[in-house]
């Protein structure tokens, strides 16, 4: 092979081949009819693309079992509804750990069979930060994990104790989501501001 042969091969090698993603979409039967026909015609004359297609088929076949799943029983999700102040009070709905600093008006929520009380206090150990004292009541068996989230990121996680209490310390002012989670049920307190 002389210089021109090699130079032409280097310049023209696979110049008519479809992009690899188009070949992939062809395999997944996602291409419009005209595009699919053009790719099919190309495949009849191009052993390289035909080989890449076989490789893709093999690869997806090998990974296929990893995408199978069986549906499970749905998790019951309650979006907590804010209650007006003073409505959901009562002797049982005061957090056990209270009064660590300046206390704001408690936030009361209702979520299905549960009631939730959040008390926001200044965190004396971290000036400018808050502590969230939570109490969840409503069922005998709790076993919840409490998670504090902000903008899709989980910031803190703690267990809810047997009396329904939980605490988050050192929380900067801002808007948060609180998720109380157990195996088959969740309570979501969305976008509350402290």
């Amino acid at each position: 092979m002389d210089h021109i042969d090699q130079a032409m091969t280097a310049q023209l090698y696979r110049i008519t081949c479809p992009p690899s993603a188009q070949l992939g979409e062809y395999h997944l039967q996602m291409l419009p009819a005209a595009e699919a026909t053009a790719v099919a015609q190309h495949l009849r004359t191009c052993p390289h693309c035909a080989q890449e297609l076989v490789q893709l088929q093999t690869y997806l076949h090998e990974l296929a079992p990893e995408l199978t799943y069986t549906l499970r029983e749905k998790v019951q999700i309650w979006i907590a509804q804010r209650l007006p102040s003073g409505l959901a009070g009562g002797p049982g709905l005061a957090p056990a750990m209270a009064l660590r600093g300046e206390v704001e008006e408690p936030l009361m929520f209702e979520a299905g069979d549960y009631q939730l009380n959040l008390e926001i206090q200044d965190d004396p150990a971290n000036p400018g930060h808050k502590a969230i004292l939570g109490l969840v009541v409503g069922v005998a068996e709790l076993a919840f994990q409490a998670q504090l989230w902000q903008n899709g990121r989980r910031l803190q996680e703690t267990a809810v104790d047997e009396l329904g209490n939980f605490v988050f310390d050192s929380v900067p002012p801002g808007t948060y989501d609180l998720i109380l989670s157990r195996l088959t049920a969740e309570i979501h307190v969305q976008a509350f501001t402290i």
Partner: protein
Amino acid sequence: MTQDILQTLTLSGLRHRCAQESDRFFNRQAYDPAFCYELFRRAILQQDEQAWGAIYSQYQRLVIHWVERNAAFPNCGEEAQFFMNRAFEKMWQGITPEKFTTFEDLSSLLRYLQMCVHSVMVDFVRQKEHKLKLEAVEELTHQPPARGTAVEDSITRTLTRKELWTWLQSQLKDEKEQVVVYGLFVLALKPRDLADLYPKVFADVKEIYRAKENLMARLRRSEELKEFLGDA
């Protein structure tokens, strides 16, 4: 799970549930794919960048695993992270809001992501093969390519290649020459293989050599070809 609840969940709530369900999936337990699908829906239909970020975080471990299982990966000399990033980019570019309606469930979306992983591996192999062919020419001519920026080089190369291809097609006299150029230069096949592939065009391999010799004799006299190939 009603669609209402899914759409009511904040990104935090959705991401939490997607992570929980994915953990169940990784532990080979039954799981509910609706939450992760909703993340994709928000990312693609609502162009929600935070949802994209959540998908990236949620699936990067899985995509790296897919990269490492690809046959082209072990000898490629690149980090799996590199291909993972390219695969996500390819998916973001590939699935438009219009196209999203064709994805009925999470499995089909993840299947597309797997296809993107394979696609970036193929791109890498194609580029490597092309680079090797260019380097072989450089060795023969002892002329390194002119230096420009990577993007400029890439655009110039693509333009030149397409121009050369268009020009070359205008120079071909008959089907035999067309098949010779396509088979020997575009597909880089050996003449014997080309003869096997096109038995109706060529009676035997000698006919391919003859057609090529005639064509090359004509092309070698062309100033335009020398210009395209940089006096190769």
